[in-house]
């Protein structure tokens, strides 16, 4: 299929395009779908930075997937966040900007299909503008492959040339950077051009823990990437915070080498204290390079729960509440008079088990959620039939949790999941907590 010719660069009106996109970001009704089509990735990067800088100037929340995330995982995270906000009964949600690039690849059709299927779910949960971006004749491919999204389009734009001079100054600097400006220019902007909220550095042996933490953080709307190898310098520099999982193996790993050899460590050692967040994990010591950073403690379930909250506060840029040396430990949430929680095999005819199953199906209707919770609760996925329906998956997960004596930790994790706060009263009741 041949597309008609695209508009030429000569006819491109950067100022009008800039104004048009901003108008949609700024003023709309519920969720607007905007399509950004580009030929030159460098030009698109300049637009992305310009729009992000402008959105931040306007106080609009900006969200895009981290480099390691799939667009579907990111959208699902945003959807869950939106549902949670809707459940919280906030009177008027401010508009937000969600921007995702769909790469032209063999997977593109599948990505279009999944986004198309979830249109109504996204419309119900997101608030603001969803910018879907791609190269070549992206809009045509999208219209053909995702007709439901196409039918709801607000505007589409061809980003044929760079953004206009009126784009925010910081973005203009980044624009120059993306067009190949000098290293000194780059160094002056390195702390501003973050496109990741956090980079988690971990040894390969701790990768599972790192991914579990990453899932928790992305579930909170943060963009996170995990690195366990020696070639992650670039991602590290793009992250506002570098979270270091300090286990006994870590200091012997390539991941630690990557941290030591990073430009941050070599050129901006003064930034380490602000940007590096060591987490004591297992039997570990703090290496000299990080001696000025205050570590978080993940060595016990209690300290882990407490310091996960502290980590979230820090990554979000919020001040930690002072409660002695750390946050006050969370109150225990489970009472001890709930024998069914310890019974193996789990009795699915018990009213509490049945109610728990129902609550879980309502609270977490997607397979990604099942996997996330299973990972968080250290329940292996081997015996969970993830290709089956959601009810069966939760059925299997509960069964496995009982077999592994992880039902109580599982309840604890569920009760701390802020995404499903609306279900916490029911979960507390089921767990016998008063």
């Amino acid at each position, binding site marked *: 299929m041949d597309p008609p010719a695209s508009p030429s660069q000569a006819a491109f009106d950067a100022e009008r395009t800039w104004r048009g996109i901003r108008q949609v970001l700024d003023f709309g009704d519920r969720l607007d779908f905007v399509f950004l089509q580009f030929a030159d990735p460098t030009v698109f990067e300049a637009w992305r930075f310009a729009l992000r800088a402008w959105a931040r100037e306007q106080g609009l929340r900006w969200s895009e997937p981290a480099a390691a995330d799939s667009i579907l995982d990111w959208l699902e995270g945003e959807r869950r966040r939106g549902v949670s906000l809707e459940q919280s009964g906030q009177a008027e949600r401010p508009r937000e900007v969600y921007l995702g690039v769909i790469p032209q690849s063999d997977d593109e059709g*599948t990505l279009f*299909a999944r986004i198309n299927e979830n249109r109504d779910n996204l419309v119900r949960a997101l608030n603001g503008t969803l910018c879907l971006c791609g190269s070549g004749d992206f809009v045509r491919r999208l219209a053909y492959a995702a007709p439901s999204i196409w039918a709801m389009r607000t505007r589409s734009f061809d980003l044929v040339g760079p953004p206009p001079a009126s784009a925010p100054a910081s973005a203009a600097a980044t624009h120059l950077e993306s067009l190949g400006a000098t290293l000194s220019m780059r160094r002056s902007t390195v702390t501003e051009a973050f496109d990741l909220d956090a980079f988690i550095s971990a040894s390969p042996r701790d990768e599972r823990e790192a991914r579990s933490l990453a899932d928790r953080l992305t579930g909170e709307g943060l963009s996170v990437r995990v690195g366990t190898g020696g070639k992650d310098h670039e991602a590290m520099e793009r992250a506002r915070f570098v979270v270091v999982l300090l286990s006994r193996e870590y200091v012997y790993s390539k991941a630690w080498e990557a941290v030591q050899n990073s430009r941050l460590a070599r050129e901006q050692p003064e930034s380490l204290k602000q940007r590096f967040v060591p987490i004591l994990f297992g039997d570990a010591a703090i290496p000299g390079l990080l001696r000025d950073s205050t570590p978080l403690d993940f060595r016990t379930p209690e300290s882990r729960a407490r310091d996960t909250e502290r980590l979230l506060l820090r990554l979000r840029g919020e001040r930690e509440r002072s409660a002695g040396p750390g946050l006050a430990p969370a109150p225990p949430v489970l009472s001890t008079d709930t024998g069914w929680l310890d019974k193996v095999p789990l009795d699915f005819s018990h009213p509490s088990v049945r109610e728990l199953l129902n609550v879980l199906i309502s609270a977490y209707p997607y397979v990604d959620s099942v996997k996330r919770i299973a990972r968080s609760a250290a329940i292996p996925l081997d015996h969970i039939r993830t290709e089956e329906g959601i009810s069966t998956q939760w059925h299997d997960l509960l069964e496995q949790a009982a077999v592994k004596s992880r039902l109580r930790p599982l309840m604890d994790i569920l009760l701390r999941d802020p995404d499903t706060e609306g279900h916490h009263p029911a979960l507390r009741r089921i767990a016998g907590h008063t």
Partner: protein
Amino acid sequence: MTNVDFKEAPKAKSLPERIRELRALMAAFSVRPIDPTNPADARRYFPFHKEPGRPRGRDPIQDLRNTILLLPETETCQIFSGFQGTGKSTELRRLSLELQEQGFPVLFVEGASYINIYEPLEISDLLLGVAAAVGELLQARLGKSPLERTLGEHLIEFFSRIKLTQIDVGLSAAMGLGPHAPEAKIDVAKLRLELSQNPAFKAKVQDAFRGSLRVFFDAFSAFMRKARELFGGEAGPCPVLIVDDLEKIQGSGQQQDHVQRQIEQVFSAFSHALKIDGWHTIWASPPYLPFLNTAIAQQYDAYVLLPMVRLWDETDPARKPVTEGLSAMRKFLRLRGDVDSLVQSEALLDELIVVSSGHVRDLCRLMQDVLRDVVSQDDPNEPLGPAVVRQIVNDYVAGAQRAVYTDDLPFLRVVADTRRAVLSSGAHVLRVAKLFDTQLVMIYRNGGEWFDVSVPVQRLLAAG
């Protein structure tokens, strides 16, 4: 068109007051179905069929309603078709209200809540979705009455006959179908969720019944007969079941062709199953269905299509805008708010109307573009002039043209020249269906139905 007295000198509003007004207009132009039972919502309904010249043909629900009124106690089965965003759900809700006022018990099913509209549809998962919807809607109607328990028994019997436990043991347990708590209320919502959200479950349902549809049909018919007794009584007029949203079945990505073929098969090969004993049924369907199978319309008691608003005549090669269509669309806009304060003249409003090709959702979207430009001005009390409005029109045209492949231009040119959508071979039928989905080809009516390409395509063809 006249501009005389179009705009009285408006009293300038304070900035916050004007912004509030523009925000309200923005919300008024969001496209969502109108609920006629909600008085505030019902005020937004615009009856195009009552306008002089009937630019959208006669009352779209008239044939559907009359079929039922003429045969109140005999089951009927009808199709209501049209493009997304043209007001089908609103019209079906109006029909539902009118039939209830005539004494018919009516169940309105939002199909997308019970059926995964993006995966290939088979008769088994469609009817299972219908049974789930009827069960859940009846549970809500019956409330705590003694009949609620009877309904629960009917549901248990139905799910037992179709062996749902064998299809998904976890779901059956979650729904309360296990042996431990037979007295509990059957949680049909779980089934709804699985059917609409979980392609794996849908595939299992399809696999389970592919070789034994007769068993499924028998169980379904028995359940629907009992549901009718609970809902409408054994005597009197048949209750009405309206299943909306099936026009949204389109598939996506590589699934599309398969999905379109499957829906054609459901509506053609299983019309007997869609006609439910003791019920009047109305099924929404995609507008491309008659192109996939020209005999489909004859298999039902009525096939009704909701067209676009006619803005030019079928026989006019120049497509000069017709007064009736423009006038109706202006009234439609003014019903939603003070649109005359947004642009400098009625002629500019008409330019926006014409470029929408008579598609009300696209016109609403164009008005939202107008609102964005108004609110961005130094003084949002100022209406937009011709330069800005034409820019909005050009942007809309350019955006829609981005969806056109040059391969489709020959077919589009034939439609533009003949106002007919005739296929010379069956090979391109799914491709043509896609042109309806992307709204590059429109359907209009004055007397009979006719076709034309949308205004952006007209301009693309004119530019050679």
